Every structure is written in C-alpha cells, then in structure tokens.
C-alpha cells in the first residue's frame, strides 16, 4: 500500500478522534467549564485537523479549519467570551467541520452553502478583518507534499560571486546551531573559498570554550542569489553578524575585497586560508521529475543498508506508554480460546467429581482454584474488547442539535456514565437503536416550547442518556422530561390498527408497551424525524438480538424513560439449561419471564396440536419445543413438563413446554453457522461441562411456529435462499 495513502487513513481516523474531542470540549464549555486547558484542547483539535489537511492539500477543509481555529484562538487569548451564543456557533461549526472531514475522506463535496454561512458567523467572532488571508491557498500549496521536480528547479539565475562575512555570537552555539554546517550549506550554492578569522582567539588558558571567537569570510561563486545565501542563515538571524555583498560584476567591486583585508592577518593565516573547497559532490543529477511523492533528495541519504535496517529498530519502542493497538482478530481468537478453556475446565471438574474425589481433596481444591483463575482470565480477556460507551454517546449531541433544529424544540442533552464499558461488538450495534430512541424522545416525547410554558416547564426540554453497570449487565436509559405517553391516544391507535380489541382491559404498563408492537407506528403517524419507516418494534428487536431487554416507564406530564439492559458481551450468555427428549437445550434467560408447572385445568386444546395455557388473566400459546424442533411426533402432556413463559419479538408472549429444567448457567456461545449451518429454531450452540453440545434456542423463530404451521418451513426456505 502506498505509505502516503496509509497516512491518509490515519489522518481521517485521527480526525474522528479530534472531532469527538472537539465536541466534548465545546459541550463542557457550554456547561460552564472555563478551564483554559479545555479551550486549548478544542483549539488543538481544530489545529490538528488543519495541519493534517494541509499535508494532503484538502483545500475546503483547510480553509474552514483555519477560520474556526482563528475564532478559537480569539477565545484562547481571552478576546472572545464563551457565551451561549458563541458556543452554539462553535458547535454548529464543529458539525460542519465533521461534514467536511467526511466529504474529504469520501471524495464528496459537503454542503457549501452551509459551511459558507458558518464561516461568516465565525468571522464575525474573530478579530477585525479576520479572513483566510493569514495562510492563503498559495502558501499551503507550497508546503504540501509534492513531487521534487516542482520545488528544486527554481533557482533563479544570478551568476556571479558573493562575499559573506559571518561572525557568530555565543548564542548561536547555545541553540545548537553550528558554523560548520552553515558553511557546508554554502557549498550547495556554488564553489566557495573560506577564510577563517581567528584573530580574536585568546590563548587556551583564558579561552571560554563556549564563547564565539571565530569568524569567517566566504566567497561564493555560482548561480545563487542573495536571498538563497541569506536563507542559509535563516535560523541564526540575530545570533550572528552577517554581511552579504556582491563580488566582481563591475570593476569597482572587484578590488573591494582585497582592500578590506588586513594584510598581516592574511599573511599569518596564509597557510590555512584561501583553500578552495569544492561543492559537495552530488551523486546524481538532481531533477527527479518522475520521483514518487514524498521522496527526498538522494544526497541526504546515508547508505541504503542502514536505512533498511532502521524501521525494525524504531519499532522496538512502543509509541505510547499506555496503549497498544491490536488487530481485533487476534483478540477474537483469544476470546475463542478462553471460551474453550472455560469449557475444558468445566469438563475436567465434572470428570473429577465423577471420579469420586472428595470436595476437600487436594485435586478438588486445585480445581476450584483453576476455576477461579479461569473466570478471571475470561473476565480479563473480555475486558480487552470492552470499550466505553462514549464512542456511541459522542454521536448523539449532534443528532440532538439537528432534531432540535428540525422540530423547533430547544433541547439539552445530558449524558451520564460515558465511561461505562461494554464489549465492542455490543457498542457497534447500539448506535442505531439509540439514534432512533433519541429522535423519538425529542420528536414525540418533548412538548413544543409553548406547551411546556403552559405546563410551567422551562422552554428547553431535556433528554438524558445514561449508562451504568448493574448486576453484570449494562443498563442504558434514554429519558425525556416531556409530557409522558398519551395512553388514550396510544390505545386508540392500537385499536384502530386492530392490534388490540377495543374493550380489552389493559393496565397503564401494558398500554405503554403497545408502542413496541409491530405495526404500531406507521408512516401516517410518524413524522419525518423519528419515523423513517422504523418503529419502536424495530428498536426492541435490535435490542433483543443483542440479548437485551427494553422497558418503558412513563409518567403523565413528567416524561418517559426507556431502559435497556444488555449483556456486557455477546460471547457468553446467561442461559436456562433444559431437557427435551433427552436433548439438552439452552434458553436465553433474557427472554424468560417466568417458569411454571402447568396444571391440566389451565391448558386448553385448540384442535390439532395447538394448545393455549391460561396465565393469570390471559391465554398464551403453549409451544412444545420437542415438536417444534422435530424431536418427537406426539406432543408431551403439559402436566409432565415445565413451561417457560417467554416474551418474543414485539412483546408477544408464549409458553415453551420443555421436559425439565436442569439449571441456570453462563454458557459460551459457539456459532452454528460458522461451524455447521444455520438451523431454524436454533440460534447457536454451546458446550456444557460434561462435554455435551447443547443448542441455544432462537426464541423468536420458535414463537413464530405458534403463528402458523408453516413458519419453520418458511424460515427454512429463507435460510435456503438467503
């Protein structure tokens, strides 16, 4: 891969980090953070983006970042106060900057009108007459990576000779500049004759070794102009005396150098002076028109053998003390192996127990320790892939601003627990449901400012996004301080859509949960913003697909809170281990509401094998898992088994009839698709302590059986075609 292309990748990756940093800083400032380091961090983020953009000549990005940076610099130097208005502009600017970054990355063009509007707003914040002038396009063009041919061939023709008188001061050396190197630079400009003036040199005894007693007069003959010569001394300007005068050309000047010389000094130094020094040999003629970008002059290169050996050497030292980057595949492999280890350890324990070792025996105790250790290893390994939810939470402020602008509702987003960690695979799949829920909270949850005023609430609505660990799971809440669920209306919609009977008695909680039903939200009811054809049923399904649950609680006039509870990882699952026809199966605990022993009087046949079971006031389908998976041809008598009341997709309930419950345990998930093929009704597999393979039930698919005899066959067709 082209190394520059790789760096470009790094640049865009880093931009995302800087943008997140930028937004975090601006939001902190909005909340009253006045720490100069916060302002500086924001400045630095914009500054870094500009710097990288400059290297890649991303003009639109450079220009915008420059104006943004100028405004931040004003703030940094205290000339611009971080008022709410100013911060709102800066936040919008950060959104535009993000758009420009992504447009640059994807080769698109961003919304120019929008960015131009913000540029004007930013300029209004800046110093008088601020513009992009400070670093105009031409400047950037000159400094960006470009082929050598474009920069090395522009020496103006100014044939002749120059006399350079150069007297360093001690400061020059104190800054680690070196006269020898400056003289060597002059050899690049033409043939030079060097004359050393050591007349000021004291004897060794009284010499201050770090003082500057030497001076030089150099005659440079070649094509260089005065500017080129002065450029050599650019870094030492002010730390030396420097005179550059033309030699020759006209007759008068021709005699000048000699006339100026102190003859006796010249004689004294005769031995040492007037030695022509040839220009440093250049291995290759310079123009390298076809040279790849980012190639520097060959003459600066030490022998290539050393160059080749070097990268390895530099890799020995980790870049940052605190973190390393690891290919995710390696971590996944490790997690897999630890999964095997857990299973192996469980098997070993079981064998030892079977072999009749006493619990207090050394072997059993050693195994206990091994188990402990295995758990710790598993936790630690899982922690490698864990990331703070911050990466998802960080995307939300922008969303809130956009939805707020579209709906005309002022909104403040409050986030809590951003540092809460959860498996990377879970995080990646959180963004969509969260986005939807937050849109929903603003669009449907919050009232208009007028209605809020009537209700005596502040005009600005609040949406709270919080994460926390609770009993081995992560709980994420999305809460608004709006009007709460309008239960009358929700019920009416459900009745109108034929989802429930008009006279169905329902608790408040049941009504609230109607919004999760498939088909509850439709285009006519959902606005542009929260809708996009997606209902809360989809949110619920995606949460369930993560092994999570979602619940809503709502108080009229006070607002609604959606609470999601998710496993910390997708690699292990809390399961209920059950037996069916001698097979061991695992049902995800998250789907199970309760377990019960069916009484004959509660079970009613609906003809064929279809049965329902009365649970409190309602009937739910009773599904024989053995039948559903084809383990048996005749259904088990309900009284001989155990029913698991489960809640499937969309909140429909069903009871799964199994032969017996073996217990609950955490199991390591093994993908069937990866190892075998997709099996309808089965989500995955695991290996139990005794070495048996147990299938993990796909609750939703099994529930589908209850809705139609051909459900599983349909699934099979899907699996076959898809």
């Amino acid at each position, binding site marked *: 891969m082209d*190394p520059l292309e*790789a*760096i470009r990748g*790094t*640049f865009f*990756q*880093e931009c995302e980090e800087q943008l997140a940093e930028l937004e975090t800083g601006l939001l902190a400032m909005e909340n009253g953070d006045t720490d100069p*380091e916060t302002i500086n*961090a924001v*400045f*630095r983020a914009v*500054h*870094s983006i*500009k*710097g*990288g953009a*400059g*290297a890649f000549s991303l003009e639109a990005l450079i220009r915008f970042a420059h104006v943004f940076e100028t405004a931040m610099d004003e703030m940094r130097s205290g000339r611009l106060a971080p008022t709410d208005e100013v911060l709102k502009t800066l936040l919008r600017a950060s959104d535009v900057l993000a758009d420009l970054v992504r447009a640059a990355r994807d080769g698109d063009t961003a919304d120019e009108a929008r960015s131009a509007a913000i540029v004007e707003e930013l300029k209004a914040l800046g110093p008088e007459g601020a513009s992009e002038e*400070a*670093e105009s396009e031409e*400047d*950037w063009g*000159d*400094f*960006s*990576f*470009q082929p*050598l041919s474009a*920069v*090395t061939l522009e020496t103006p023709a100014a044939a002749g000779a120059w006399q350079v008188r150069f007297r360093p001061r001690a400061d020059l050396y*104190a*800054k*680690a*500049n*070196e006269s020898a*190197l*400056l003289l060597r*630079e002059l050899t690049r400009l033409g043939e030079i004759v060097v004359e050393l003036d050591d007349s000021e040199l004291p004897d060794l005894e009284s010499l201050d070794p770090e003082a500057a007693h030497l001076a030089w007069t150099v005659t440079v003959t070649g094509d260089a102009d005065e500017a080129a010569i002065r450029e*050599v001394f*650019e*870094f030492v300007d002010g730390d030396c005396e420097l005179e550059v005068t033309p030699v020759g050309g006209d007759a008068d000047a021709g005699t000048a150098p000699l006339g100026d010389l102190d003859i006796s000094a010249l004689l004294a130094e005769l031995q040492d002076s007037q030695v022509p020094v040839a220009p440093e040999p250049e291995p290759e003629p310079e123009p390298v028109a076809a040279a790849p970008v*980012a*190639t*520097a*002059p060959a003459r*600066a*290169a*030490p*022998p*290539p053998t*050393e*160059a080749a050996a*070097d*990268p390895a*050497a*530099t890799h020995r*030292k980790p*870049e*940052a*003390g605190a973190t390393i980057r690891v290919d995710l595949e390696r971590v996944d492999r490790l997690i897999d192996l630890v999964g095997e280890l857990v299973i192996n350890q469980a098997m070993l324990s079981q064998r030892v127990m079977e072999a009749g070792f006493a619990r207090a025996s050394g072997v059993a105790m050693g195994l206990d320790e091994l188990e402990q250790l295995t758990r710790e290893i598993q936790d630690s390994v899982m922690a490698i892939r864990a990331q703070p939810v911050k990466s998802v939470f960080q995307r939300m402020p922008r969303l809130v601003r956009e939805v707020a602008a579209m709906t005309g509702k002022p909104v403040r987003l409050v986030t809590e627990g951003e540092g809460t960690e959860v498996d990377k695979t879970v995080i990646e799949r959180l963004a969509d449901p969260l986005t939807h829920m937050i849109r929903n909270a603003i669009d449907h949850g919050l009232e208009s400012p007028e209605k809020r005023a009537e209700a005596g609430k502040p005009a600005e609505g609040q949406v709270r996004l919080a994460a926390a660990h609770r009993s081995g799971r992560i709980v994420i809440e999305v809460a608004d301080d709006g009007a709460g669920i309008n239960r009358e209306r929700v019920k009416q919609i459900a009745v109108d859509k034929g989802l429930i009977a008009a006279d169905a008695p329902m608790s408040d909680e049941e009504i609230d949960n109607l919004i999760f039903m498939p088909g509850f939200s439709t285009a006519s009811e959902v606005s542009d913003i929260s809708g996009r054809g997606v209902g809360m049923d989809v949110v619920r399904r995606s949460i369930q697909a993560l092994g999570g649950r979602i619940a809503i609680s709502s108080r009229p006039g006070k607002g609604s809170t959606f609470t999601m509870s998710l496993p910390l990882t997708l690699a292990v699952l809390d399961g209920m281990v059950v037996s069916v026809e001698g097979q061991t199966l695992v049902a995800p605990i998250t789907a199970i509401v309760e377990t019960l022993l069916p009484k004959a009087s509660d079970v009613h046949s609906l003809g064929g094998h279809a049965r329902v079971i009365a649970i409190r006031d309602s009937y739910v389908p009773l599904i024989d898992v053995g039948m559903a998976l084809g383990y048996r041809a005749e259904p088990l008598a309900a009284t001989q088994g155990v029913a698991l009341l489960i809640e499937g997709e969309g909140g429909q309930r069903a009871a799964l009839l199994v032969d017996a419950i073996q217990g609950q345990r955490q199991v390591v998930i093994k993908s069937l698709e990866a190892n075998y093929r997709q099996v309808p009704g089965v989500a995955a597999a695991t290996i139990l302590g005794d070495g048996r393979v147990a299938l993990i039930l796909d609750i939703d698919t099994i529930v589908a059986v209850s809705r139609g005899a051909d459900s599983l066959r349909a699934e099979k067709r899907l699996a076959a075609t898809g």
Partner: protein
Amino acid sequence: MSMTVLTVDDSRTMREMLRLALTDVGYRVVQAEDGIHGLEVLATENPDVIVTDINMPRMDGFGFIEEVRSDPQNRGIPILVLTTESDAEKKNRARMAGATGWIVKPFNPVKLVDAIRRVAA
C-alpha cells in the same frame, strides 16, 4: 552510522508523516506524543536531532525545549520546532527557549530534510 531523529508531536498523522519523510532518506526515527513523553524517550535514546511540535497536551514545545536545554548533556542537540504559524512570536519564543530552527507545517519532505541537514551533521 545513520542519524536518529526524535519527533515529538501529539498528532499521529504528523508523526507518521515525519516518519515517512525521514525514514525515506535513511534516518532512524523515534517518536513521542508530547513534551513529557519526549523527555522520557530522550532519557533512553540518543537522538542526533529533535523535531518537535509546539502546541501539545501535558507539556508544550516551549516547555520541552527548555527542559532539554536545562540538561547539560542535551545542550548540543539541535531542536527544530514544527509550526503552522508563520507567526514571528512563536518562532521567537521557541528560539528564546533554545530552539535551533523551525519547519513550517505542512512541510514538504525536501524542506524538512533541508532544515535537518542545516542543523545536524
């Protein structure tokens, strides 16, 4: 013996840019992310020249240069500051702190190598 360059910059992009340009001409590159990290690296590496950014978290370029120069052993190491600002004030502050020279960002590799050659053998 190849020349070792210590680059100090909080931007990963910039560090990689520098590494690319410098390894391309055969220099050995060691990197640090800010001034404090730079001092740590300096304690174990023996760079022939240092290229440092100015605006960095924890310890900025000015502080870093002053720290480097305050160690008698390191007084002779040439230090180039990277600066996007054509701002004379930044350059002067860096020189006051003991910087040897500067490189204007975004640099092109030729100017970078030229600047290094001008301060380090």
